[in-house]
């Protein structure tokens, strides 16, 4: 009775929100369902943990989930999925609600949920998925996560012998999580023309082994802190991946798994890991290589990999980064560095305002390497922020950027930033900042353009 009431109340709320603000993602219906029935999820009929997949990890889980859902749908599965990135318990409930009848019967063959790594234990308690895909466990949002090990332990706490985990075999923390599972399927990416090492940098560091805590050795990196590695002390990391992307061609946008060729429209090393993760899980669930290939060929990412806004003749290309997450910053820097033409670089780090206390962390940028970006032809770098503009500028200087080409604007004022940008002739502009700052700037430019 309680479940029935919760279901109807939540469905009504979802319907009302859709009338008022169509397409707006919200957790409110989920919160209402859980308020009336704290065990709401377990009361849904037809929910099968054996057909439930969670995708978790620090980076790449939204794209991986989107790709997986696309493949499953192409393969004819009915999928309950939280594509909007609502990855806390409320978001999971909302996604299940959408696929429930008024009697509480789930109308889906597969439940696929992106789950926040920090809240995974809470979500898993309600919905004990038997399949867990782990993309990576890296430095991220240190104000709440502290150190990667804290998150690794949270994920480890849900893994049991009756589970199958799908892990990035090229990332030490993710791979280590497979050891406790009943079955571990490993995926990875072969060495390719974008692979690199850090042996030329005296200041480069690797990482402690998640098993023995001694230093890991990377034979090469495919993206920052992900690549072929081994621990010389305990031998961890030497096993072969079950699914390996090979013969990677970033220009032709293709890769192989075995003899089969797959397209990957978003042809960066970062996205390639999302593709191979999706391929691995979909294959294990019975999707054929032909269907996966077909799905990859027409997959379109919501929002794209890069957003642009025009100011006069200048095109500002915005690259997203995650807060306090050096790997996503490095990926963004690498994309810009791949453009050898002259450019203006706008860097808008700022204080972190996710929750109290707001604070001024920029130290994670010292885990990144700006030198390839700096060597790629930056005519002017404009660092802006109400609080940490000088810290951002200092970071550029430490990696060799010429001080005379650096402008530090200790403000977040949109007009000041755009006015400064317009002083320079170069039309090729890249921007790294928080999403909310980009949206504010884009809104300002929109008004400016009339």
């Amino acid at each position, binding site marked *: 009775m309680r479940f029935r009431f919760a279901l109807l109340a939540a469905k009504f709320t979802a319907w009302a929100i859709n009338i008022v603000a169509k397409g707006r993602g919200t957790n409110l219906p989920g919160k209402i369902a859980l308020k009336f029935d704290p065990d709401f999820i377990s009361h849904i009929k037809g929910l099968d943990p054996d057909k439930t997949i969670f995708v978790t990890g620090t980076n790449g889980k939204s794209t991986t989930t989107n790709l997986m859902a696309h493949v499953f749908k192409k393969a004819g599965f009915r999928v309950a999925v939280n594509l909007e990135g609502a990855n806390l318990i409320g978001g999971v409930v909302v996604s299940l609600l959408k696929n429930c009848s008024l009697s509480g019967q789930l109308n889906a063959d597969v439940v696929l949920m992106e789950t926040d790594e920090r809240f995974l234990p809470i979500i898993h308690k309600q919905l004990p998925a038997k399949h867990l895909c782990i993309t990576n466990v890296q*430095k991220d949002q*240190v*104000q*709440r*996560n*502290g*150190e*990667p*090990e*804290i998150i690794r*332990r949270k994920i480890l706490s849900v893994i049991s012998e009756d589970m199958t985990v799908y892990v990035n075999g090229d990332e030490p923390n993710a791979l280590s999580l497979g050891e406790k599972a009943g079955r571990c399927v490993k995926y990875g990416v072969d060495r390719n023309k974008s692979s690199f090492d*850090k*042996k*030329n*940098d*005296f*200041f*480069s*560091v*690797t*990482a*402690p082994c998640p098993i*023995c*805590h*001694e*230093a*890991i050795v990377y034979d090469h990196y495919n993206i920052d802190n992900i690549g072929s590695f081994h621990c010389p*002390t305990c031998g961890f990391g030497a096993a072969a991946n079950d699914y390996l992307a090979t013969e990677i061609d970033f220009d032709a946008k293709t890769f192989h798994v075995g003899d089969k060729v797959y397209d990957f429209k978003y042809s960066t090393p970062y996205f390639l890991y999302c593709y191979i993760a999706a391929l691995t899980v979909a294959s294990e669930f019975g999707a054929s290589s032909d269907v996966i290939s077909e799905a990859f060929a027409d997959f379109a990412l919501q929002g794209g990999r890069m957003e642009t806004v025009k100011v006069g003749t200048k095109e500002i290309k915005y690259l997203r980064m995650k807060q306090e997450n*050096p790997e996503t910053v490095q990926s963004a820097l690498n994309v810009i560095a791949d453009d050898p033409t002259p450019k203006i670089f706008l860097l808008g780090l700022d*204080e972190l305002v996710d929750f109290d*206390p*707001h*604070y*001024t*962390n920029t*130290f*994670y*940028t*010292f*885990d990144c390497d700006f*030198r390839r970006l700096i060597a790629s032809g930056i005519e002017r770098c404009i660092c802006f922020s*109400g*609080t*940490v*503009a*000088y*810290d951002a*500028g*200092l970071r550029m*200087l*430490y*990696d*060799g950027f010429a*001080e005379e080409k650096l402008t*530090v604007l*200790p403000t977040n004022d949109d007009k000041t930033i755009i006015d400064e940008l317009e002083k320079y002739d170069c039309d090729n502009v890249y921007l790294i900042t928080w999403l909310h700052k980009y949206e504010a700037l884009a809104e300002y430019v929109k008004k400016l353009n009339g």
Partner: protein
Amino acid sequence: MSDFDKLNRIREQFNRSTETLTNVSEVTGESGFRRLHILWLYPDVLNIHGGRGDVMAFLHMCDLMDIPVEIRRLDDLKAEADWSWPHIVYMTAGELKCVDKVAAALIRQMDGIKRFIRRGGLLIANGSSGAALAKTVELYDGSIVNGTGLLDMTWKERESVWGDDIWVRTEDGLDVIGNQIQVADVTLGEGQKPFGKVVYGRGNNDDGVEGAVSDGVVYTGVLGPLLTKNPHLTSGLVEAAATLAGVKVGRKLAPEDIEIEEKSAEYIKAFMKDKMKSAGESAEVETQVDTQTE
């Protein structure tokens, strides 16, 4: 103008396989001079919070002050360091999980470490790497790791992380600012001197003090990286170590060398002051801040 060209020219000359780096080709002075020796301990293991920036800051400061310096790194926890070589030993911030191996490696070398400290060496640990200098560390699962006990402090892993800005004033009146990501509460033994008093932030255990310091051994949890953000601290450390080691200091740090760092500090201190005000902290605190700064 803060000249970073030297740092980047030097950086191009050395790599991981050289295992040592020196600025002698860049600093002025006669040949055959003594060098300041800095040992960077276990950087592959103690690898978080941008800590490598601290070692870059050491190099940059030595470039600015015309101090010939040689920096070596030791990554192998099983190897024995030559403790007669360094004047400064630095451990960058690492994960608390590594305290077992790092502490064990240091305990194994304790005779050398004590000789190093006796002859005036400076051992500094930043962030959670400081746990290796504690007497004991209690981890999340209740297990106890024995540290070196070089500082009279005990650590206990917290159930939740505390992250915020921090502003510390040392006994010498030096302001040190940065961030704190605290995964363990730190309790000092009676008589153990802290690194400094907290002007803003949480500190060791929300008890008004931060870090710990005794003869030749320093722990502070201030991140930033600590030494890029606090050039006066960095210059003080290298100058003191150079003087003790008989290494020539070519020039004093000039205000124009660190204009950008000073500007950064100005904005970040203002941000912390605003937080104190909005938290309703007393006018007394504000007065204290104002009188303590500049």
